[in-house]
């Protein structure tokens, strides 16, 4: 003990000397107009620290002089000095040079020294003194005074053993019990090598998941043109395969218009040009389907109500460049399905009309179709004809497939067929479940979809439902799931082109329902009301973030999909695939 006392005395003495020295310096410096002397002082601090002296001098809030503790009167005068100096420009510089750390908790402990987390408690041989290094202490002079005052008192060992009674009282306390129950569970889970999932956190995240439903679809833009779109039903929408912000929309006839109005209109809209369409294309019959040519960026094809296939060249005029003739094969019924299959060099236009006829055209020669296929199916009513035609309302080809295709018909069936069959007969494979005409079909074309998911087919029908089919399983032809949330005709269903389990349905009440199969097979994650008009057609953009919906009065709305809904949850997706596999 004596040793320690002497040491203490020695240190005090040294301190006093230092104080005197520094006071002199201070006086000198006060006369100068000094700039920031911070670096010097920090080195001073370091020196002090190194030499194991008391480092109370460490804190320069002023650029002049170092605050040295312990005597009360000194402190007060210093405090006053700092108060005065605070108004000076120099102080501001000081602050900016060494900003205080965020959210520091300066704890007042009886037997410790107020410091931030950089405590280096060096246990020396003479273990009675703990010399803290005060870096980063807040530049609040009041706090500083507290620190310095408590530093005086210091210097009991932090390591002092608390008594058994204190320990016991702590152990009995509520907070300790709670802490222990929680942390021991965590530790035990960790010991057994498993995932350390704190139950409370799990419960919180589940709540978050349920809130996804709101605001998934927000209206971005609306397109309509007084002259050309008023009172016309949107019959077809397609996004451009080459330009990301452009899409085309085909319109039917304006029933209430004048005779001089254009009968068939296809408009090309750009998201950037909001006031009017970018291109106009006209035809002399209402247009029932239209699409871009994937391999020629300026070519647009249209299928007309009278059965003609027309080609527009956007660089040229507004009326069709080419058109198919109305005789010699070809269609004489409205063309509801139009697509281009094949590759860049070898492609064909496939059109399907309402009477079940499929024609394969070569663009160079639109006088005559290359091949005509008449889809027929068994006649259920067993009248004179054993076979009856398929009244198709929509047609879809799988991506990359130029042979197989699916057609939705007015009798409620979906037929699968091939363009090129081995036999002479035309074999169609029906998927029968809808009770009313099929209005739309869609095949999953997401690039992220696994093989299981990319075989899924969706169909919407006038029987108020949508059905999900697995096209791989030929056996039963039963649908995998039925989605019934609409209370009106469902006019269209579309898979999202990027998200493997997201799709949308549009119905006659104006609702756009967003479904995510990985979350819920029975309810949509969002029901968005876009107005009071029924929505006839919809199409997701290529990147899957926007959907264009066209209603029966000529207005097209662009809805933006929220980031939350765009996220793919792979675990849930895997579960979905499992379920699909097991549903064979």
């Amino acid at each position: 003990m004596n040793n320690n006392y002497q040491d203490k005395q020695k240190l005090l003495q040294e301190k006093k000397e230092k104080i005197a020295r520094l006071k002199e310096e201070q006086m000198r410096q006060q006369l100068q107009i000094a700039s920031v002397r911070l670096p010097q002082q920090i080195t001073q601090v370091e020196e002090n620290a190194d030499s194991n002296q008391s480092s109370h001098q460490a804190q320069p809030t002023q650029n002049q002089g170092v605050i040295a503790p312990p005597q009360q009167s000194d402190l007060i005068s210093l405090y006053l000095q700092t108060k005065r100096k605070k108004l000076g420009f120099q102080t501001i510089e000081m602050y900016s040079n060494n900003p205080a750390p965020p959210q520091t908790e300066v704890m007042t402990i009886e037997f410790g020294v107020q410091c931030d987390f950089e405590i280096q408690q060096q246990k020396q041989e003479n273990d009675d003194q703990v010399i803290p290094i005060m870096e980063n202490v807040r530049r609040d002079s009041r706090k500083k005074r507290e620190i310095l005052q408590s530093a005086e008192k210091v210097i009991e060992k932090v390591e002092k053993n608390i008594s058994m009674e204190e320990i016991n009282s702590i152990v009995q306390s509520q907070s300790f019990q709670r802490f222990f129950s929680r942390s021991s569970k965590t530790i035990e889970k960790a010991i057994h090598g498993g995932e350390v999932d704190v139950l409370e956190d799990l419960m919180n995240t589940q709540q978050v998941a349920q809130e996804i439903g709101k605001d998934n679809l927000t209206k971005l833009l609306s397109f309509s043109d007084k002259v050309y779109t008023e009172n016309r039903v949107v019959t077809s929408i397609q996004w451009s395969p080459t330009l990301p912000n452009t899409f085309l929309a085909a319109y039917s006839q304006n029933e209430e218009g004048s005779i001089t109005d254009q009968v068939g209109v296809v408009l090309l809209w750009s998201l950037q040009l909001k006031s009017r369409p970018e291109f106009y294309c006209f035809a002399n019959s209402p247009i029932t389907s239209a699409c871009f040519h994937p391999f020629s960026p300026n070519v647009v094809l249209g299928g007309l109500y009278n059965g003609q296939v027309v080609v527009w060249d956007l660089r040229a005029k507004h009326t069709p460049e080419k058109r198919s003739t109305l005789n010699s094969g070809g269609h004489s019924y409205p063309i509801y399905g139009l697509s281009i299959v094949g590759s860049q060099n070898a492609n064909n236009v496939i059109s399907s009309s309402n009477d079940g006829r499929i024609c394969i055209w070569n663009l160079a020669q639109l006088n005559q179709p290359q091949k005509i296929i008449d889809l027929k199916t068994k006649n259920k009513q067993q009248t004179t004809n054993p076979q009856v035609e398929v009244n198709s309302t929509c047609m879809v080809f799988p991506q990359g497939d130029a042979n197989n295709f699916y057609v939705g018909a007015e009798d409620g069936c979906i037929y699968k067929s091939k363009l090129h069959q081995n036999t002479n007969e035309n074999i169609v494979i029906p998927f029968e479940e809808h009770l009313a005409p099929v209005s739309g079909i869609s095949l999953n074309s997401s690039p992220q979809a696994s093989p299981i998911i990319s075989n899924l087919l969706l169909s919407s029908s006038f029987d108020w439902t949508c059905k999900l089919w697995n096209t791989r399983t030929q056996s039963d032809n039963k649908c995998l799931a039925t989605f019934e949330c609409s209370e009106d005709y469902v006019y269209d269903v579309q898979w999202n082109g990027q998200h493997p389990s997201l799709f949308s349905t549009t119905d006659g009440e104006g609702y756009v329902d967003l479904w995510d199969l990985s979350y819920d097979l029975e309810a949509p994650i969002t029901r968005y009301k876009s107005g009071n008009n029924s929505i006839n057609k919809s199409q997701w953009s290529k990147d899957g973030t926007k959907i264009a919906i066209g209603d029966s009065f000529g207005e097209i709305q662009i809805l933006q999909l929220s980031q939350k809904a765009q996220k793919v949850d792979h675990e849930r997706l895997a579960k979905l695939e499992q379920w699909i596999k097991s549903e064979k």
Partner: protein
Amino acid sequence: MSEIEETINRIKTHKSVQGIVICNNDGQIIRSTYGTESKEGENIARTIPTLAAKAKSTVRDLDPQNELTFLRIKSKNNEIMVAPDKEFLLIVVQGPKEEKKEDE
């Protein structure tokens, strides 16, 4: 109280667990299975709280809504698991992985 002792025992008797220390944020040992002869317990109680505090503040700095739930230090010889709390820490030192999986 006895539940605490029970739980400590249960954890302690797990095959690869070398020791348990419960201490507060200042490093004062509340319970320790190391005993007073070896300095290990004291060393742990002295050094780990500062590390845990640093980790806690780092997590907070990166995202103010976030908080540290568990800290695990895997080293060559052993693994130190720390379950932090506002005032206390539960520290368990476990031996290397090979020793585990014996009671499964």
